[in-house]
């Protein structure tokens, strides 16, 4: 491991995993943490709970489709939901830079309340720290959340099985490309909007109606590529996806093409990858499509082999290539 932290340690790819495995797991090691699910699944007095935490450091703080506060609520709610839990309570901690506008803070807090309300969760504890100017970038927010795991639901990233169909609830890369465009560093603006949303009501619909769902994972940092690689690693299976079937907005297609980026690696904040037994796939897909956050849901691939721990893409020309774990931060090409 390198001797200093670089930006790639926070990118959700290989370096992040290395830091987690070689440092945090080395000291915090326990069977619950080792499961590496989006939320810890814990038993307290015979009650199964999901418990998770996440920190948010997005720049710009306000973007089309949301802000850091909405993101902080959605991110934690989604981590609970994809663990098969009903999200119940959140905490929120703010680290605010001296000089930050109270009006902006109110806008952020207001949208957190709105989002929590929509998702049916309560923000029940919090903390505020203010640091000197220059010691933070405006505002950082941490949220932790607790939820109650539904009975007879066993969703886990080690559960993918041969024959499982991979479904995504909509278009790839909307959040990441929105943020990149709005940082104003690319010299062009698109009609892009972050997909930031609480997905618990969508997950509820899926779980209520159908058995056969083995894995649900939200595809945030590192994009769909990172999530599929994690699932193939933990379930010890090979996954094949079809390039033709990947849902993409025209704007994202255009922007990624122009910059030489691969939408599979771009962050989402309202997308889940679902692994379902083939017999139930059509039903799950149909019920997802009836929900507003799943109207563009599509089958993107399949678990093809036991063992292997690889993810392949069948390309538009009929070739096949590896989709590996992202490494470092995603950067536009030079020429």
């Amino acid at each position, binding site marked *: 491991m390198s001797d*200093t932290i670089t930006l790639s340690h926070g990118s959700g790819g290989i370096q992040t995993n290395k830091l987690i495995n070689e440092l945090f797991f080395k000291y915090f090691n326990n069977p619950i943490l080792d499961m590496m699910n989006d939320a810890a699944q814990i038993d307290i007095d015979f009650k199964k709970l999901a418990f998770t935490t996440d920190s948010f450091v997005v720049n710009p703080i306000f973007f089309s489709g949301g802000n850091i506060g909405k993101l902080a609520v959605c991110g934690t709610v989604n981590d609970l939901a994809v663990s098969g839990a009903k999200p119940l309570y959140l905490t929120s901690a703010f680290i605010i830079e001296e000089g930050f506008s109270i009006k902006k803070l109110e806008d952020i807090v207001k949208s957190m309340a709105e989002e929590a309300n929509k998702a049916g969760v309560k923000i029940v504890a919090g903390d505020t720290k203010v640091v000197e100017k220059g010691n933070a970038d405006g505002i950082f927010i941490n949220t932790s959340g607790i939820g109650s795991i539904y009975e007879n639901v066993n969703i886990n990233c080690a559960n993918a099985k041969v024959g499982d169909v991979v479904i995504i609830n909509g278009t790839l890369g909307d959040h990441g490309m929105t943020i990149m465009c709005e940082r104003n560093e690319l010299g062009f603006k698109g009609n892009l909007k972050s997909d930031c949303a609480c997905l618990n009501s969508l997950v509820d619909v899926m779980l209520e109606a159908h058995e056969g769902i083995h894995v649900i994972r939200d595809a945030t940092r590192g994009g769909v590529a990172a999530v599929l690689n994690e699932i193939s690693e933990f379930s010890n299976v090979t996954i094949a996806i079809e390039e033709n079937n990947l849902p993409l907005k025209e704007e994202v297609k*255009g*922007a990624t093409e122009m910059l*030489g980026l691969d939408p599979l690696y771009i962050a989402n904040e309202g997308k889940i990858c679902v692994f379902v037994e083939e017999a139930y796939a059509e039903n799950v897909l149909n019920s997802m499509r009836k929900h507003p956050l799943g109207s563009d849901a599509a089958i993107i691939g399949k678990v093809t082999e036991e063992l292997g721990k690889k993810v392949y893409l069948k*390309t538009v020309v*009929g070739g*096949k*290539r590896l989709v590996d774990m992202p490494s470092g931060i995603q950067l536009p090409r*030079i020429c």
Partner: protein
Amino acid sequence: MKFVDEFRNNEYSKKLVEKLNNISKEKMNIMEVCGTHTMSIFRYGIRDVLPSNVNLISGPGCPICVTPQSYIDMALTLCEEEGTIIATFGDMMKVPGKKGSLSKKKSEGADIRIVYSPMDCLEMAKQNPWKKVVFLSVGFETTAPMTAVTAMEAKKRNITNLLFFTAHKIVPPVMNALVKDKDLKIDGFLLPGHVSAIIGTKPFEFLSKDYNISGVVTGFEPLDILQGLITLVSLISKKDYKIENEYKRIVKTDGNSNAEKYLNKAFNIVDSSWRGIGRIPKSGLEFNSEYEDFDALKYFKINYEEYDGSPGCKCGEILKGKIKPTDCQLFKKLCTPENPVGSCMVSSEGTCAAYYRYHKDIT
């Protein structure tokens, strides 16, 4: 943006693949010069659908890869200069030098900022009047005009705290060096689409005229590449030596005269060192006397001598297309994108990075 789907169409792809497989059985070596082509070819799994007689070789067209070792070492020295902001393309961040990498220097506190265009440096210089902004100015004919325009604009606006550490290179001379290399037998070139958009197709005509080698300019979408290959394989099999343009929606025969005008206004053509390949006459660009005040090395009065190479790294042989990344003993063992030994593993356009990321048969 329109015309993305059209060039990724599944049905047309199938037809083109079929056509490509029925042109010739003759064995042939085709080099794709440009790193973005290398990446596209892997990304769309095109190697998988090629006829077995066509051997694709990746060439030296990755700007970060061909920048010599001494350049990154000097950049690491420049970022230690008091009151300096280093502005760079992101790809440069992880290139290993003797004293670490820019990414490591940044984490240790050096002021290093990723930019998407040299023009971003104008604003950066304006907002930091007490500092010197040094742009790490690398790239081929595609990026050099932007450097030229930025320097011109800085001159016009009287911005005096913006400097450039330039290592721009031009593509046709390195191709000339490759075709002269007796160990390499190249039957045809997929010519770089972006570079050709600037310089046009004429600078590649020496290939067909002097060496009986055909070339086809093509774009970067799967249909572009397949069509480019069909035309090239046909030319080679018919021994019809010429340069064709299959990227007419972007590339004109005479190139982009404005961009060339900017290049000529700011730069002189000079000899230049390419990583692993060596010094090639008239293959680099350096600010001319009118713009030499923008030259960071002259400003800091630094004596800079070019040198090459990390021990054991086969980047040079790979850039020349003599070996594949899988033939390098370091590949995927000591040299990975997280811990790169050579620049070909770092850059998003590097051949080793392409093999590492996309090659499905390497374990």
